[in-house]
């Protein structure tokens, strides 16, 4: 089912959480709403679910106006960051809840409910935990129960609010992969909120980057990473070196003159230049302007801190490359920029 959001605005007191947001969620896609806290991503998701009320705008679910509908009528599955499982119910009862509360005429028989619940628990690989209480499960297991519970009502859309936010790194990765696979199997239109760019880029078909109640960019993960539409997107997605500079004749120069970066023709005057750490090349050179001020090796990667005439830079390369270069702490080096983006000073 497709979702069409247009002109949705939401105000909390004097804080504008959403400012005339337009967005289209395509049928069957897995969409990420990515942004820092306070960017309005969760509010947008909750408005889609009917848990929050928009001040103005419209929301079409499958072409039908849905803002006036209750969550019950919208038939969306919602997964909460902190699971929100019913504490006094077993895993089985939690998953069965959505079917049991249906009006008498539409309620499946209890054998049918049992069959469906066990099927879903099979799907989330928790079939033999059916009689446990949520308190007896780990975080990852609880979130899988929450997912099974949301799927039990056969929702047309699955909305997930920071679904992995409360889990530790390893479980998060596993669950992420598992969710991607699940989506490939059942192809339900899904929207998930996250502040973790890695998660959004790895999991989603398309990523929506939000900031201060507005959408900054919508695009495929490769799109938003390689061609960020704004300085905010560039800075938010991944590590970045940022320089204040002035652009003249297609070249951006930093104030101390230590660095000049080729800029495209559209920008003039004061600007901000961004360079990703892996787009920063280093070569040992006794007369080079840079000095290695720190080396951190994390697994197969190396992060090198450079002091370029008072300007701190960060470069990233694999460990073998660093060994090949033979750079050590305190060495002088030359710095070249393979790729940069220059945005006008806001």
């Amino acid at each position, binding site marked *: 089912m497709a979702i069409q959001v247009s002109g949705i605005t939401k105000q909390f007191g004097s804080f504008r959480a959403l400012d005339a947001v337009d967005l289209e969620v395509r049928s069957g896609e897995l969409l990420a709403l990515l942004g820092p806290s306070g960017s309005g991503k969760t509010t947008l998701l909750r408005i889609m679910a009917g848990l929050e009320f928009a001040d103005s705008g419209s929301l079409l679910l499958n072409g039908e106006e849905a803002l006036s509908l209750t*969550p019950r009528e919208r038939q969306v599955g919602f997964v909460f960051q902190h699971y929100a499982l019913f504490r006094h119910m077993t895993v089985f009862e939690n998953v069965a809840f959505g079917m049991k509360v249906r009006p008498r005429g539409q309620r499946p028989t209890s054998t049918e409910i049992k069959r469906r619940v066990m099927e879903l628990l099979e799907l989330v690989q928790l079939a033999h935990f059916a009689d446990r209480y949520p308190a007896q499960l780990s975080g990852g297991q609880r979130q899988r129960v929450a997912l099974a519970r949301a799927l039990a009502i056969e929702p047309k859309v699955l909305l997930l609010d920071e679904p992995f936010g409360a889990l530790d790194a390893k479980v998060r990765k596993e669950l992420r992969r598992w969710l991607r696979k699940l989506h490939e199997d059942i192809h339900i239109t899904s929207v998930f909120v996250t502040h973790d760019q890695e998660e959004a880029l790895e999991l989603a078909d398309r990523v929506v980057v939000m900031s201060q109640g507005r959408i900054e960019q919508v695009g495929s993960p490769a799109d938003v990473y390689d061609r960020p539409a704004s300085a905010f997107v560039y800075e938010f997605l991944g590590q970045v070196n940022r320089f204040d500079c002035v652009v003249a004749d297609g070249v951006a120069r930093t104030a101390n003159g230590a660095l000049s970066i080729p800029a495209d023709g559209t920008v003039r005057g004061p600007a901000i230049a961004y360079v990703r750490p892996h787009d920063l090349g280093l070569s040992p050179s006794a007369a080079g302007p840079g000095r290695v001020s720190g080396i951190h090796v994390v697994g197969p990667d190396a992060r090198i801190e450079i002091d370029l005439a008072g300007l701190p830079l960060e470069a990233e390369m694999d460990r073998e490359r660093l060994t090949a270069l033979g750079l050590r702490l305190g060495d002088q080096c030359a710095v070249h920029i393979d790729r940069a983006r220059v945005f006008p000073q806001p």
Partner: protein
Amino acid sequence: MVAATTSDAVLPNSGGTVLSVLRKPSVLPGFGLTLGFTLTYLSLIVLLPLAALALKAAGLGWSGFWDAVLTPRVLAAFKVSFGLSLAAAAINAVFGFIVAWVLVRYRFPGDRIVDALVDLPFALPTAVAGIALSALYAPNGWIGSLLMEWFGLRVAFTPLGIAIALTFIGLPFVVRTVQPILQDLPPEEEEAAAALGATRWQAFRRVVFPALLPALLTGFALAFARGVGEYGSVIFIAGNIPGLSEILPLLIVIKLEQYDYAGAAAVGVLMLMASFILLLALNLLQAWMRSRHAR
């Protein structure tokens, strides 16, 4: 305390005392000290007076005890005391729950004042409450006269009056036990219920209420216990007609005034046993409910 320190000195492989068996390695210091203090304190404040009471009653002997207790007047008062305390606690469980709900869930002008009002039955001298209530509900009082006129209902000086007094003093117990639990109830569970298609009523009945039930039971038990022991407010409104509206605590006072100390102690022991059994049952019920969803 002494027991705890000696248990420390016991050789590790000698089997140890009861305390060293109970004692598990823990970063929290002072197990021996605090347990010793707790036991000593409870003995002095609670067990000693109760033991004295039982001892006094024991002076009657086994058959003497039952003779003192199984008289029609005592049994009637027993029914009045326990029956009406349970009824009042039940009324409070319903309406106290609603009060707590309103205080937690809605903001309205004067909500702080209403919140403060709830505690008044705690603070008011019970005799004052009793006199005020009997003045209101007496056949010539404001409410009493209307009830008499419209329904021919007599409240003061009947068991109904006792129930009203016990409801009055028991209210804060239910409100104050349910309130914090309701306050801490995460809204997500209700939202989850709504997203899963539950109506407001279904969400309340299946999600909110079960989460509050243990607290509600505690409030019920406290209101009940308070009602059984209540004296001051009841004797003014009850009319104290033997066999009809006489409560056990009053009967004890009457026996004391007749210098029947052992008889008074026997009635006291009877109350103690009945209360203990009821409260224990309620506690076990609660423990069972909690064990089903530990934290």
